[in-house]
């Protein structure tokens, strides 16, 4: 019976190709536009580290000005970054499973190979704990050691692409790379690694690529390099040297901790508060105690990784989908009613209400399916356009299997919602009414 109805549905679509195209097209456009915006939204708000995103935390200490909070919203919130001296104090804790202070800093890189031009590479200066904390996969070698963290050892971990560029993709552990003309020994090469959004440092955008190389945090400090990021200061203080800067109230480094158990989390909160109270005695931390650990999803919410623009687009896109559905409801209703006399004949020939409903239900389903496929195609092109228009959205604007499935399901659901009223309407046709001449 179902195949008979499928055939009827197909014939019915073919009988009125323009109107069928209009119905399918309306659903496809609605789905295409909503899925394009929804995919962006979905990737922006997706969990970059699903396995442990609830155990890895961004640390906030409220070392800000006594006169005003860093963030006005929600009754005030502490700054998103830490001062150097506070981060160093937190690094002394042995509560976290892993922890790392970090900053973004680029280097001019070359090797002993004279044929390679010196190039600027983006880099991250951090602690060895960074790699196990964020589950960074290694291709060769591994992280540097704690001792190397302390001694500002000239060691470097390369990204897969950088290793390919500098050493042709070979196991380069033990090789020398020159960073800003100074020799660094390669200790590890990481495999492709791209958390999306790139949650751990949101200063340079949440949808950028991971860094091309990693060095111990102590390296740029010893070279008196600041960060390539954002530095915010509130206190009028004389800063005449790099040491002054390190001791200042300026916030400019990120600090992350892994706390696996509730006990660890409580202990760490107590540790932060204890530290802040201690500092109060020294005249710092004049604001009410407000130190926070935010797991990855909380952090992305707090830093508003999903922008207003994207939320606005989703709202408008769904209004657009509603318009497309209203459109489809109207067309289906008109189409179904136009064949009311025929349905009257079928009813007179013994078709039950549910037969009529099924016949039209199959047609509605078919329209939804075609619309969904069309919508998928349109969202593919939509995302292609978005990738072209936004630099840095390359990783973001891609169809993934979940979204493909969502589009189809959404389209069929949409068509069914749209077809519900027309189908119900047509099943109410009395067999007799349309048999008489008008």
């Amino acid at each position: 019976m179902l195949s008979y109805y499928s055939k009827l549905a197909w014939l019915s679509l073919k009988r009125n190709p323009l109107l069928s195209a209009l119905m399918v097209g309306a659903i496809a456009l609605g789905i295409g536009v909503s899925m394009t915006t929804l995919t962006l939204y979905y990737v922006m708000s997706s969990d970059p580290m699903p396995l442990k995103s609830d155990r890895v935390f961004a640390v906030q200490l409220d070392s800000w000005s006594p006169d005003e909070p860093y963030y006005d919203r929600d009754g005030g919130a502490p700054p998103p970054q830490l001062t150097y001296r506070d981060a160093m104090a937190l690094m002394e804790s042995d509560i976290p499973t892993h922890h790392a202070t970090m900053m973004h800093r680029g280097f001019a890189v070359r090797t002993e190979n004279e044929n390679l031009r010196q190039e600027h590479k983006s880099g991250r200066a951090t602690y060895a704990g960074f790699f196990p904390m964020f589950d960074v996969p290694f291709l060769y070698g591994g992280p540097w050691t704690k001792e190397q963290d302390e001694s500002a050892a000239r060691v470097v971990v390369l990204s897969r692409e950088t290793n390919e560029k500098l050493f042709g993709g070979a196991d380069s552990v033990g090789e020398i790379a020159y960073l800003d003309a100074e020799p660094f020994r390669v200790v590890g090469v990481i495999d492709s690694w791209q958390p999306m959004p790139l949650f751990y440092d949101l200063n340079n955008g949440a949808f950028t690529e991971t860094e091309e190389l990693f060095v111990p945090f102590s390296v740029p400090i010893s070279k008196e390099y600041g960060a390539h990021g954002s530095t915010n200061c509130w206190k009028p203080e004389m800063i005449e040297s790099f040491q002054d800067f390190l001791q200042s109230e300026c916030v400019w480094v990120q600090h992350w901790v892994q706390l696996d158990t509730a006990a660890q989390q409580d202990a760490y909160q107590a540790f932060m508060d204890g530290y802040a109270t201690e500092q109060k005695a020294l005249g710092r931390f004049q604001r009410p105690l407000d130190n926070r650990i935010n797991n990855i999803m909380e952090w992305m919410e707090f830093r508003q990784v999903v922008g207003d623009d994207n939320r606005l687009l989703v709202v408008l896109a769904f209004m657009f989908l509603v318009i497309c559905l209203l459109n489809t409801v109207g067309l289906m209703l008109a189409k179904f009613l136009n064949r009311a006399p025929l349905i009257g004949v079928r009813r007179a020939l013994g078709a039950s209400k549910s037969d009529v409903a099924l016949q039209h239900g199959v047609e509605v389903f078919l329209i939804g399916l075609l619309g969904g496929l069309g919508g998928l195609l349109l969202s593919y092109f939509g995302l292609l356009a978005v990738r072209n228009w936004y630099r840095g959205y390359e990783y973001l604007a891609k169809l993934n299997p979940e979204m493909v499935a969502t589009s189809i399901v959404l389209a069929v659901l949409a068509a069914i919602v749209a077809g519900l009223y027309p189908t119900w309407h047509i099943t109410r046709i009395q067999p007799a009414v349309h048999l008489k001449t008008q």
Partner: protein
Amino acid sequence: MEIRPIISTLFRNKTGAILIALQIALTMAVVVNAVVVIQDRAATMAKPTGVDDNHLININVASLADEVDVRAEYEQDLGAIREIPGVQNVAKIETLPLSNSGSATSYHISDDPTSPSTNVAYYRVGYHALETLGVEITRGRWFRQDEVVFDPADGSTPKVTVIADFVAQEMFGDEDPVGKYMYTSLGTGIEIIGTYDLMSRPWYSWGEFYSTVMFPVVERNAPVVVRVDPADRDRMIDTLETTLAEVDQERLVGDAQTLEEVIARTYQRDVAMNRMLTIVMFLVVLITGLGIVGLASFSVMQRRKQIGTRRAIGAQRFHIVRYFLTENWIVTTFGIVLGLCLTFALNALLISEYNLPKLNPVLLPVSVLGLWFVGLAATMGPARTAAGVDPAIATRSI
């Protein structure tokens, strides 16, 4: 006109009419609010930077040596660039308007840190910046060559500044600011020696867009900014980059970009947003228009007998066209009334949730006319089909 009978007919065939009216209403809400966003973004992007955007090329240089004689490097770099034919001027400037990277701080009108202060973005620039950027001095004077400080120690405060007219107005009102001082929060005074007309901040997201000052300071690794004729600009980029690379083989030279490219990157989200909204707007109108065409066609198909009868008893073709156009106009107008409410409701929601500006009332009559036009244009085809119905259909049974 036959408005009353049309309305009573519509009342007996409500569903189609309601669907069209709802579509019109939602379309209006989406389109008007999208236009509000687009206009807002476009207005932001249309604000001039105050410098000659289309003349400027920015080239980054990064020296790797431990110690660099910044003044010597400055002379060398500028000398080399000036040799190139087509170069109008060149300077080292820390950052450029809308480059999305820079610094801002607050300055007070007296050495008392509780006195009123103004937040300004500051540019550290070399001597030739004024002419390179194309900014005009309005009062006082520009820096002298000997006032320019090369590679100052961290945190050392400049002695003199030239401030934007906007900042002068903010700090001192209508008084002449030349000769006055502005103060850091630690009470160090900086003498204001002149004012310039207009230069925007390196970013547009926060603070007053034109609240800027300039300091005569050349930092280590300050980018080289070259002024050229816009017609020569694109083909000169490579030459400029190579020339700078040859001055010192040991340093990194790159990222040569026109200021227009830099600005385009800063605004890319807004440009993309406006494009997406424009496309959505266009599609919404298209879909609604096609929906009206579809429903009107069905309606004509269903009323063929009735149309034939009307023709038989004396309706001319234009009567039939007029009937369908009037019918659509009534439905559209009903949708528009509903749409006005929806538009304001959505606008209120967007104002509270997304900091959208209030809608400009001029948009409303424009959108009403537009929707009337869309409705009538969409109905025209089916109405003409209806007018073509053969009156002899009236004498056929069935």
